[in-house]
C-alpha cells in the first residue's frame, strides 16, 4: 500500500463540526418526502391480513371507481415483476420475491395491490374498498417446520431451509470436545427486531422524457443496487434509470436492500408516465419493511483445566422470514455468523454450520452489526461460564484465550487473517476505567436494588473489500469504491463517491481527508454522493465501509490531484515539482521561503489560461481514486453497569464505558457519536425491542407504543476512550467503526444482568431480557436459594 508520509495531517484528527448540521438544524435537509413535486400522485398498498395462504380473489372494482383514484394495479397488471437474490453456492436455494404477491401470501403485511390516487388520503380510502379473499394456511413461525398442516413457504425448499452452510469442518473436533476437561453445551437466542430508522422508507418516481430516464428518489443506503433492481425488474438498461438518495433519515441496514415497494413505484411510473410518491408509514415500516437478528446458536465449547479453549462447535439457525432480500440474499447473516464467531479468541478446533430458515414472518435484512451482536454475546457468555466453572477470574480467562499483540497477523481456524489490533490493551484499559469510576463500590451497595457489571471484549471486521466479499459467492459482490476529486476554476473542490451517507458525517470526514492532501481548508471541499448519475458505479454505505473505502478512494484521488497541482505550480514558479508543498491554500517551494502561488491562481490558470502552460496535455484538475482493502478488524471493550429493581424486573443501565480502536480517527466527535448511537441501539435490542407475533402469525408490535424504541431516559451516558492501531491496508490508516457500538452492547448488558442476579443462579443467554424474564429468574432463584436452606 502506498503511504504518504510527507502529507500534513492537520485536519485529520480534528473535531471539525459537521458540514451536514447547518441545513439539518434549519429544517433545510432534503429527505425524499421533502423533495418538491406538487403534481405527484400518492400510492398506498393493500397488504395481506394473514401470514400464509392462497389468494383466491382480489376485487378492486370499488377502489377503481372511487373519485380521485388514478389507477389500481395487481401483480398481473404490472407483468408479474420480481426480484431474485442469488448466492452461487450449491447449499443455497434460489427463490423469487414477486413485487406484489401473486397467488400466495407468505407474511402478514405482504403487499398485494397498489393504489395510485390524487392524495395519500384518497389512496388509503381506496385500500379500504379492496376485497381480498385468501384461503388461510397455518403459519410457520419458527425453525421447527413440517408440522402436519404446514405447507412449504417456497416450493423450491420443502424443508424451509434456504441456505445450509457447513463452513468449517475438523475431523478431530468431536474427539477433542469429548476429551476436554470442561465441555459447555449452551443455547443462545436473539429476538427479532426492526432497525427503525426515524425516516421510514420513501420514494418518489418521475419520468423525464428529455433525459429518457425514470428518476427515482429513494431513501436508501445503496442507490446503485436500487438502480440494478429496478432495471432488472422492469427490463430497462441501467442508464434509463437515475436513482437519487437525497438526505436519508437513518438506515442501519434496513435500507441496504432493495424494497419491493420501491420497485413497484418505479414500475407504476413507467406505466402511467406520471410522478408517483410513496411515504411508508410507521405501521408499514414495523410490520412489513425488513426485520433482523432472529437467531439461535447451539454451541459446544471445550476447555482444558487451565481455561484454554480447545474446540468450538456451532450450529446456527437464522429465521430469515418469508423472502431472501435482494441483492445480497438471506445468506448474509448465516455466513457472517459462521465465519466470524471465534472473534478475538484462539478457539482451537472449529466447526460451524449455519442455516437460514424461511418463515411466515417479514423478510430480514442485514441490521447494524450483522450477526456480530449475537456472536459476541455467545463468546463472552461462554468465557464467563467457563471462568465460573473453572474458578478462574473472568478477565484472566480472556487473557489466556485472546489473540495477543505478538500473534498478529493471526490466521484463525476460520481462515481469516486478523490485522493488528489492541485486544488486551483495550480490555485492560477498560477494567482500569471501571475501577476508577467506582462501579465496584456501587455494585456492593445494599439497598434492595441489584447491581451488576458486565465487561466484554470483541473485534469486528470492517470495510470488506472485493476479495473478502467474493468468498461469500454472492452473485453481486460488493467491495471496491471509486471516487473522483475535481477542482474548479476558483480552487474549490467537489468530491463524488459511490457511498451514500445517512448520518455518518461523510461530508465532513471526506473533506478532512481531501483537504489535508490539497493543503486547503475543508470548507472548500464538498462531497456529493447518493446519485447514480454522479458516479459510474458504487456500492453505497453499509458494513462500516464508507470512510475506509469511499474516503480512502477520495484520499487517493486527492493525492493524485495534488500531484497535478504541483506540476503546474512547478512550471509557474520555475521550481521542481518535487519541491512543491501545498499548505494553507498555497503552493510553496521547499527551501525557498516567500516563493509561493495561491492554489486559486493555479486553478484559474489551468482553466482559463491553458495557453500559458507547457504541461497542459491532460487539461483541468481532476483525478480518480480507488480503494479495495481486504477488510480490517476494529476492536473494542464495552462495560455496562446495570441496576435491577426486583419489584418490577426493570433494568436500568446506569453507566457505560467504551474503549475502542478504529485505527486513525479522522474526526473524534463523529466516531464518538457513532459509538454512542450504536450502544443505544444495542441496549435497545438487549432490553426493550422485539417484533412479536401471535401463534397464527399476526404481528403484535405495529406502533411505537408496542415496539419500544428507547428514549433519553433509557439511554445512559457513554464515556469513550480511544486507542489507535493504524491500519496498513488503507491510505488513511483508518478502520471502519459504524457498527461496533451496536455489536458490543447486548453482551455487555446481558453480562451485567447476570452479574446483578449472581445470588439467584442467573444464566440468561437470550435477548431481549424483558422484566418478565428477570422476574422469572428472581422467582426461580429465590426458590432454589430457599431449597438449599
Amino acid at each position, binding site marked *: 500500500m502506498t503511504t504518504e508520509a510527507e502529507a500534513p495531517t492537520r485536519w485529520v484528527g480534528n473535531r471539525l463540526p459537521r458540514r451536514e448540521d447547518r441545513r439539518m438544524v434549519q429544517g433545510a435537509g432534503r429527505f425524499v418526502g421533502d423533495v418538491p413535486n406538487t403534481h405527484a400522485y400518492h400510492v398506498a398498498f393493500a397488504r395481506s391480513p394473514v401470514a400464509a395462504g392462497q389468494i383466491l380473489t382480489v376485487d378492486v372494482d370499488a377502489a377503481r371507481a372511487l373519485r380521485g383514484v388514478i389507477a389500481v394495479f395487481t401483480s398481473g397488471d404490472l407483468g408479474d415483476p420480481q426480484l431474485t437474490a442469488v448466492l452461487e453456492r450449491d447449499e443455497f436455494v434460489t427463490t423469487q420475491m414477486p413485487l406484489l404477491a401473486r397467488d400466495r401470501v407468505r407474511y402478514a403485511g405482504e403487499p398485494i395491490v397498489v393504489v395510485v390516487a390524487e392524495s395519500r388520503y384518497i389512496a388509503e380510502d381506496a385500500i379500504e374498498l379492496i376485497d381480498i379473499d385468501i384461503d388461510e394456511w397455518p403459519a410457520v413461525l419458527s425453525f421447527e417446520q413440517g408440522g402436519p398442516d404446514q405447507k412449504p413457504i417456497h416450493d423450491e425448499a420443502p424443508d424451509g431451509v434456504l441456505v445450509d452452510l457447513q463452513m468449517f469442518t475438523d475431523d478431530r473436533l468431536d474427539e477433542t470436545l469429548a476429551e476436554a476437561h470442561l465441555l459447555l453445551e449452551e443455547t443462545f437466542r436473539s429476538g427479532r427486531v426492526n432497525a427503525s430508522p426515524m425516516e421510514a422508507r420513501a420514494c418518489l418516481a418521475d419520468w423525464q422524457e428529455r433525459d429518457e430516464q425514470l428518476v427515482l428518489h429513494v431513501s436508501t443506503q445503496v442507490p446503485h443496487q436500487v438502480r440494478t433492481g429496478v432495471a432488472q425488474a422492469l427490463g430497462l438498461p441501467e442508464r434509463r434509470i437515475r436513482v437519487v438518495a437525497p438526505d436519508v433519515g437513518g438506515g442501519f441496514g434496513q435500507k441496504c436492500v432493495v424494497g419491493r415497494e420501491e420497485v413497484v413505484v418505479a414500475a407504476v411510473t413507467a406505466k402511467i408516465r406520471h410522478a408517483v410518491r410513496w411515504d411508508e408509514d410507521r405501521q408499514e415500516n414495523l410490520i412489513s419493511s425488513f426485520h433482523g437478528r432472529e437467531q439461535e446458536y447451539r454451541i459446544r465449547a471445550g476447555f482444558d483445566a487451565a481455561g484454554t479453549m480447545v474446540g468450538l462447535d456451532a450450529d446456527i439457525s437464522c429465521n430469515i422470514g418469508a423472502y431472501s432480500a435482494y441483492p445480497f440474499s438471506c445468506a448474509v447473516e448465516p455466513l457472517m455468523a459462521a465465519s466470524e464467531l471465534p472473534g478475538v479468541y484462539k478457539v482451537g478446533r472449529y466447526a460451524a454450520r449455519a442455516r437460514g430458515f424461511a418463515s411466515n414472518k417479514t423478510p430480514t435484512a442485514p441490521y447494524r452489526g450483522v450477526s456480530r451482536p449475537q456472536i459476541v454475546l455467545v463468546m463472552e457468555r461462554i468465557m464467563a461460564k467457563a471462568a465460573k466453572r473453572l474458578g478462574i477470574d473472568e478477565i484472566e480467562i480472556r487473557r489466556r484465550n485472546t489473540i495477543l499483540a505478538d500473534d498478529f497477523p493471526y490466521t484463525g481456524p476460520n481462515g481469516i487473517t486478523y490485522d493488528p489490533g489492541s485486544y488486551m490493551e483495550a480490555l485492560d484499559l477498560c477494567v482500569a476505567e471501571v475501577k476508577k469510576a467506582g462501579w465496584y463500590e456501587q455494585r456492593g451497595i445494599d439497598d434492595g436494588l441489584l447491581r451488576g457489571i458486565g465487561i466484554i471484549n470483541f473485534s469486528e471486521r470492517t470495510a470488506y473489500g472485493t476479495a473478502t466479499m467474493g468468498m461469500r459467492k454472492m452473485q453481486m459482490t460488493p467491495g471496491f469504491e471509486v471516487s473522483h476529486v475535481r477542482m474548479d476554476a476558483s480552487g474549490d473542490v467537489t468530491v463524488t463517491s459511490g457511498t451514500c451517507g445517512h448520518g455518518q458525517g461523510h461530508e465532513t470526514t471526506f473533506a478532512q481527508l481531501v483537504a489535508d492532501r490539497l493543503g486547503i481548508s475543508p470548507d472548500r471541499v464538498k462531497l456529493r454522493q447518493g446519485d447514480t448519475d454522479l458516479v459510474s458505479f458504487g456500492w453505497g454505505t453499509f458494513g462500516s465501509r464508507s470512510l475506509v473505502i469511499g474516503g480512502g478512494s477520495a484520499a487517493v484521488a486527492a493525492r493524485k490531484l495534488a500531484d497535478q497541482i504541483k506540476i503546474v505550480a512547478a512550471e509557474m514558479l520555475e521550481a521542481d515539482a518535487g519541491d512543491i508543498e501545498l499548505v494553507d491554500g498555497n503552493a510553496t517551494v521547499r527551501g525557498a521561503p516567500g516563493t509561493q502561488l495561491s492554489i486559486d491562481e493555479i486553478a484559474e490558470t489551468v482553466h482559463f489560461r491553458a495557453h500559458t502552460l507547457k504541461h497542459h496535455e491532460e487539461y483541468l484538475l481532476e483525478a480518480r481514486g480507488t480503494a479495495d482493502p481486504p477488510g480490517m478488524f476494529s476492536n473494542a471493550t464495552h462495560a455496562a453497569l446495570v441496576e435491577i429493581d426486583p419489584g418490577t424486573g426493570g433494568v436500568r443501565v446506569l453507566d457505560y464505558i467504551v474503549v475502542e480502536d478504529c485505527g486513525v480517527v479522522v474526526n473524534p466527535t463523529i466516531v464518538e457519536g457513532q459509538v454512542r448511537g450504536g450502544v443505544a441501539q444495542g441496549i435497545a435490542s438487549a432490553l426493550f425491542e422485539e417484533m412479536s407475533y401471535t401463534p397464527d402469525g399476526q404481528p403484535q408490535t405495529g406502533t411505537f407504543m408496542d415496539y419500544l424504541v428507547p428514549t*433519553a431516559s433509557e439511554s445512559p451516558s457513554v464515556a469513550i476512550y480511544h486507542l489507535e492501531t493504524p491500519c496498513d491496508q488503507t491510505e488513511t490508516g483508518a478502520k471502519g467503526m459504524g457498527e461496533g457500538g451496536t455489536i458490543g452492547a447486548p453482551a455487555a448488558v446481558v453480562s451485567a444482568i447476570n452479574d446483578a442476579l449472581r445470588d439467584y443462579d442467573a444464566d440468561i443467554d437470550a435477548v431481549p431480557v424483558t422484566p418478565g424474564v428477570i422476574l422469572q429468574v428472581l422467582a426461580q432463584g429465590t426458590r432454589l436459594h430457599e431449597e438449599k436452606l
Partner: protein
Amino acid sequence: MKDQHLVTLTVNGREHELLLESRRTLADTLRLDLGLTGTHLGCEHGICGACTVLLDGEPVRACLIFGVQADGRHVRTVESLADGDELNDLQQAFSRHHGLQCGFCTPGFLMLSEAYLSTNPTGDRDEVREVVSANLCRCTGYQGIVDAVCEVACARREKTTDA
C-alpha cells in the same frame, strides 16, 4: 363532496388563508400546502415527536392536530429559529455537541427544546433528559441532545440574570 373549510392561520409570523379538508393534518398542511418541509413525520401516531411544532407557544404533535384546529392560531416551525443566515444558540449547540446525525428527528427536538427553554429552566440534567424523552432519536443515543439543551438553558438563564 369533500368537507372543506376556509382557515386562517399564522405560521412563523406570516398569515395564510387556506381551504382545508377537515381531516387534513396540521403536518400535511405545513409540509404540503405551505411547503415548510422542515417538520418531519416519523410515526404519524404521536409517539416519535419528529413533527413537534409550537401551537400558540405550546409543543404539539403536528400529526395529531388537524389543520382546521389551527384556525386563528399561531404556529412556529423549525424554519423560524434562525435569523437569516445566523443560527440561533440552540441550533448552534446541537451542532457543537453532535446532537444530530441523520437529522430527520432534529426539527422536532429543536422545537420541543425551544418550548422547554421558554419556561426559563435551570438546565438540570435529569430534568432535561426527562423532557427530551418526549421524542425519539435513533442515531445519537441522546447524549449530545441532552448536552446541548443543558448548555443553552444555563446560558440563557445567565443572560437573563445579567440583564
